[in-house]
């Protein structure tokens, strides 16, 4: 049996690593590394759940870890990579409202606000240090995901934002509310559907349905760019 204090410290390290991955997602412009960062983040979550299982011996946590491992660390990143390859988007350099640096500062601010808020609300519950940290980072992660969604223009980055948000919810659930397994499973199915849909849409653009282009704003630019390229090639020939 490992000492509980060691486990606590392990969890703290893992949570900080998760926070670091979120920060990386916020600032990264390279799409491929975004997806791999996300899968690392999910993997870290799996570790957190496993360590918690060692402390609590709750089978539910093990199931959660397994589910997360399969869906978020493997299936979803796989789909994302396929989209990325198919669309041939390598970089996402367009930003809305916030540049990456200011987004990073904003997320520091968010963590402070959330900390303050949770301290005021949960103060009287006298949670252990680790649980409090986990809950704070969980809520902050949700906010950071949202921040990613509105500050990036590429749809693929937006999807990563949604996924990050959900990881935040999972983290919060692990530490504070005991998220039931069934809800977590449903959320995972939602996420898989989201990525699947995104994949289909991405492939749909490559097929001949021209009307899709006008409807999907983020993809439209890309499509126009591509058709211009194609036309140029045609002229060259």
């Amino acid at each position, binding site marked *: 049996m490992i000492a509980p204090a060691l486990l606590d410290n392990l969890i703290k390290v893992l949570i900080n690593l998760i926070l670091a991955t979120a920060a990386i997602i916020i600032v990264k412009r390279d799409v491929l590394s975004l997806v791999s960062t996300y899968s690392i983040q999910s993997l870290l979550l799996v570790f957190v759940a496993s360590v918690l299982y060692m402390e609590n011996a709750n089978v539910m946590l093990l199931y959660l870890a397994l589910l997360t491992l399969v869906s978020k660390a493997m299936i979803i990143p796989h789909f994302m990579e396929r989209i990325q390859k198919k669309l041939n988007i390598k970089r996402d350099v367009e930003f*809305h*409202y916030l540049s990456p640096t200011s987004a990073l500062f904003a997320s520091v601010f*968010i963590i402070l606000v*959330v900390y303050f808020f949770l*301290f*005021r609300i949960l103060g009287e519950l006298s949670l252990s240090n680790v649980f409090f940290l986990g809950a704070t980072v969980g809520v902050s992660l949700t906010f950071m995901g*949202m921040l990613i969604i*509105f500050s990036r223009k590429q749809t693929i980055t937006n999807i990563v934002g949604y996924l990050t948000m959900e990881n935040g919810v999972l983290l919060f659930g692990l530490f504070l509310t005991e998220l039931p397994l069934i809800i977590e499973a449903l959320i995972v199915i939602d996420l898989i559907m989201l990525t699947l849909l995104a994949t289909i849409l991405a492939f749909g653009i490559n097929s001949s349905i021209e009307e899709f282009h006008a409807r999907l704003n983020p993809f439209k630019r890309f499509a126009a760019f591509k058709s211009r390229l194609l036309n140029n090639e045609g002229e060259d020939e």
Partner: protein
Amino acid sequence: MFISKGGRLVRRISLSVAAISCILLLAFSSIVVYQNQALSFSLYQMLPALQFSFFIDRLAAFFILIISIISLSVSIYSIGYIEHYSGDTKKNSLVSLMILFMLSMILVVASKTLFSFLFFWEIMALSSFILVMFEYEKKETRKAGIFYFIMTQLSTVFLLLAFIMIYNATGSFDIAKVSDASPFVFLFLFAGFGIKAGIIPFHKWLPYAHPASPSNISALMSGIMIKVAIYGLMRFVLFVLTPELSWGLLIFGAGVISAIFGVIYALKEHDIKRLLAYHSIENIGIILIGFGLYIIFSAYGLTQLALLGIIGALFHTMNHALFKSLLFLTAGSVVNATETKNIEEMGGLIKSMPYTALFFFIGAISISALPPFNGFVSEFMIFQAFLMSWSLASPMLEVLMIVGLTIFALTSALAAACFVKAFGITFLAAPRSEHAKHAKESSFSMLLGPAILAILCVVSGVFSYQIFSLLGYASLVPNLMIISIFLVAVYAFAFVSLRAFASNNTRIGETWGCGILSQNPRMEYTASGFSEPIVTVFKSVYKTKKTNHRTFFDKYQSIFREGAGEIQLFKFFEEYLYMPVARATDYISRRVSCFQRKDLDFYIACSFVTVLVLLLIMGWLA
């Protein structure tokens, strides 16, 4: 139902059915009023707390009585009137909506719960809105309709606020006594009902909506819909809240202002329906004066005077419904016959439309409060209450009463002047336009409808003493029957003696001719001419601006070249009350509309910021 199909016969049948049901209702409500009993029944339960249940006591039955009388005569009138419009679909929808409108008014009055009150209130507002928009092809009508719609919805909003506060205080939707309501409940109720009743400064929709809507609808709206608002005010102030002296003063003040400004604005109008609309404001003012006096006198424990005030107000409510609907219906006939609403272009109609003229005349006498007609009786009661106000304890209030009394007296006098103008210019002298020259008397049903009201105007005036003693308030009014018998005797005597003793040589001349031969209609007294002195006297009220520009041929300004003069009327309430609100709304909505973009990211950013701010606030409060 029959909106797209069915012709004249279907409309006739449905209007007749409406008329018959009005007669039944009339019988029922008169029994309730006479026996002074209360009935209550529940109809339909939608949700546990929300049910349509009805309750009819003497007050409600009295208003149902008024509504059924007016609806009866308007239904009969409409049989002929609606045939002037074109298109079966339009005519049928007019009939069906009109009946829905009447029904909703009755059910508002009969409502037992706040929920059904508000529900039918809204049905009433919506159906009347569509009816106002009936001639939606015209630009003015659309403007009037939108204006009316905004005002009427505003009234519902205020009522909703008040009802929610009542519900919070009592925990039930029943219209029942609330022990400690905040004064805001009264203010909201007053604003809500005030907008609907057309109290100044919420009156502006009346002069727009009445001329725009068909005349039978104007008769319903002016005759009874604004009375439903009065009913609501009375019901809630007396039966739900506990009236206070300050409320009485507020109602009294609003009444005085509405009365005097209503009649002053009416004087300058030449559009016959708008003129009548302003008179509605005036009469609502008179009703509110009576009601305000009731609350003031009750607060000082003077029950007899208070009774005089409230009975005067209620009786005036009925009388105004009678003669105002009568005037609107006859005005509708006139407008139909002459195809104009401008009284300057009428004239001489007494020869071509004698019965319509007679009915209009009866209505005009009643509204001018001349004895022995009904308008006199109710105004007399309110005057009596005023004159007895020396018995009030507070000298400040006494001064206020005297000021109110003088304004009220001025109002009555100006109303009489205004109807001299309205009747004289419309019906007397020679026709001033081609249409007026070729006007024809209306059809039978369009005469029968007003005839009922005209007869009731006379009956409720002459036999007012008998009616009141039947209801148990004998000492309030003088016996007008004796006075009217005396008056009739004097007239008969004068007539007979003239017939017998005056010279029989007939001299044929033209009316108001002053001996001028071959006179033409332009030489007659015009409506503008008639009201010019009054407009000049009250120019501070109208904010009139008279301008004239003259140019001359020579530099000494003696040989006149050309000139132009104009009188501008400044719309005070529109400029200072309505337009700033409208502009502010416009400004805010323009500012807010910048949040509306075709950009998902922006919306997510907004919700992000909102959640963050909420978190901060919650953290602060926790």
